[in-house]
């Protein structure tokens, strides 16, 4: 085995990059801030936001009823906000894109709100704008790599955010086919 290269990662290099060994507190922090929330949100997404799921038509009819009776805001206030604000610092864009970013929010997590991949400004894994914060795409990659899906990072071509949905319930919008995932 070649000696690990201490600093720089090269895609086609046979020399592995020396990974920093994380302390116990670092590993616990990673589990609490990344691995557990990722697992929880991924499971919830697969249960409630999969248009091919058996219960999807039920959710669709429920969303339709709420929209027609002008009660969609209730879902947002009572269910969506209390869950998504603490977990994701949700900005209520109404056109949720967390599923493209390993269940991290591009609106609150990235100063440039990039939905299609990292900007070129990051440095050693940290954000160009806030150098104390890890780049949201780096965090997303680590989350995906942990469950063996690192290669799927940023594969989707995400359409522009729909500003007409701002401050509305992204859950209702999804089931009504109003957001960017309508197709």
């Amino acid at each position, binding site marked *: 085995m070649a000696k690990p290269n201490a600093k*720089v990662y090269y895609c086609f290099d046979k020399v592995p990059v020396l990974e920093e060994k994380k302390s116990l507190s670092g590993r616990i922090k990673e589990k609490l801030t990344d691995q557990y929330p990722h697992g929880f949100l991924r499971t919830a997404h697969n249960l409630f936001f999969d248009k091919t799921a058996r219960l999807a038509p039920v959710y669709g009819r429920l969303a339709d009823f709420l929209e027609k009776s002008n009660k969609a805001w209730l879902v947002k206030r009572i269910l969506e906000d209390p869950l998504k604000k603490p977990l994701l610092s949700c900005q209520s864009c109404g056109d949720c894109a967390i599923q493209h970013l390993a269940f991290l929010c591009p609106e609150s997590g990235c*100063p*440039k709100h990039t939905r*299609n*991949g990292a*900007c*070129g400004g*990051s440095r050693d894994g940290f954000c160009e704008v806030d150098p104390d914060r890890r780049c949201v*795409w780096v965090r997303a*990659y680590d989350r995906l790599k942990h469950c063996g899906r690192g290669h799927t990072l940023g594969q989707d071509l995400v359409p522009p955010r729909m500003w007409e949905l701002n401050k509305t319930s992204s859950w209702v919008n999804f089931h009504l086919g109003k957001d960017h995932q309508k197709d």
Partner: protein
Amino acid sequence: MLRIFSHAISNPENFVVTLELVPGRESAGRSIDTLKGIAKDAFSDGRISAVSITDNPGGNPSLSPDVLGYEIFKCGMDVIVHFTCRDLNRVGMESRALQLARMGMKNILALTGDYSGKGFGGQGKPVFDFDSVLLTTLLKSLDQRLLASGDPDLFFTGCAVSPFKTTEAETLAQYGKLDKKLMAGASFVITQLGYDVKKFKELITHLHQRGMNPPVMGSVYLLSPRSARAMNKGRVPGAHVADTLFDQVIKEWGGSPRSGLKTAIDRAAKLGVILKGLGYRGIHIGGIHRSFKAVGRSWTGWRKLRIPGKRMWENSTWPNPMPRSIIALIRSLF
């Protein structure tokens, strides 16, 4: 007014050279005259295919590349306009793209852009309604409308990539986004500024592995101590100058500015040769602020350059010793 850049770079036999011009925060005066002078000299010289003009670099307000570009374009020089997503929403961006099309300047470098810097009264509001992938898609969709309105001269959109990332996550994220930009319709690629030859090679290898062969230009910069310090400290987003190179630049300029500039020109020339050897289709020269002379000298240096041996390539200019395969490749060029 000539649009030669797209033809020049599309021909695999050409090695294209473009110059980057950085306007300041003035609408007239010496700095603007200097930039126009550089562009005119480059046009007279005949070896430069286009000048590219930055769009509020660092997020700080500066003269619009559209107006300066148009003045240069009218003189005959082809222009690449940098188009960032920071200052305009999608409505403003489409309007600007239509304006550029109307003015005939259709070489666009589509960028997400640096974050907002300070303008009148403080930091500006960052817009970032789109990112570079969506901007490229927008320009491609405008092509259809240009055709429908009877204009066969379409946008020639390029993109940037920053291969000089140190972590696995950033590197893969950069290449993933590059693939998307190319799929969205980018016709050429310009790298960010860096001095790691293995990374330059990595980019080309990645593209070949993906079965893509777009024209790629490497950024080359005449490093002064001031610019090297800014890049080393991370004050120029995306640009990377390693500690070893920074120390070397300081040492080179320590004796006299003249010898420092000469070494900077030599380094640019050497990097140009290496990039050509690696399969890059051109170089994008930055850091020209006073006159076109330095570019001419870099060119001459490049032509005269002979490979003196492995040692030169293994000096501390580069963060890592250059692999033997690249040295052999460069040797084979001469």
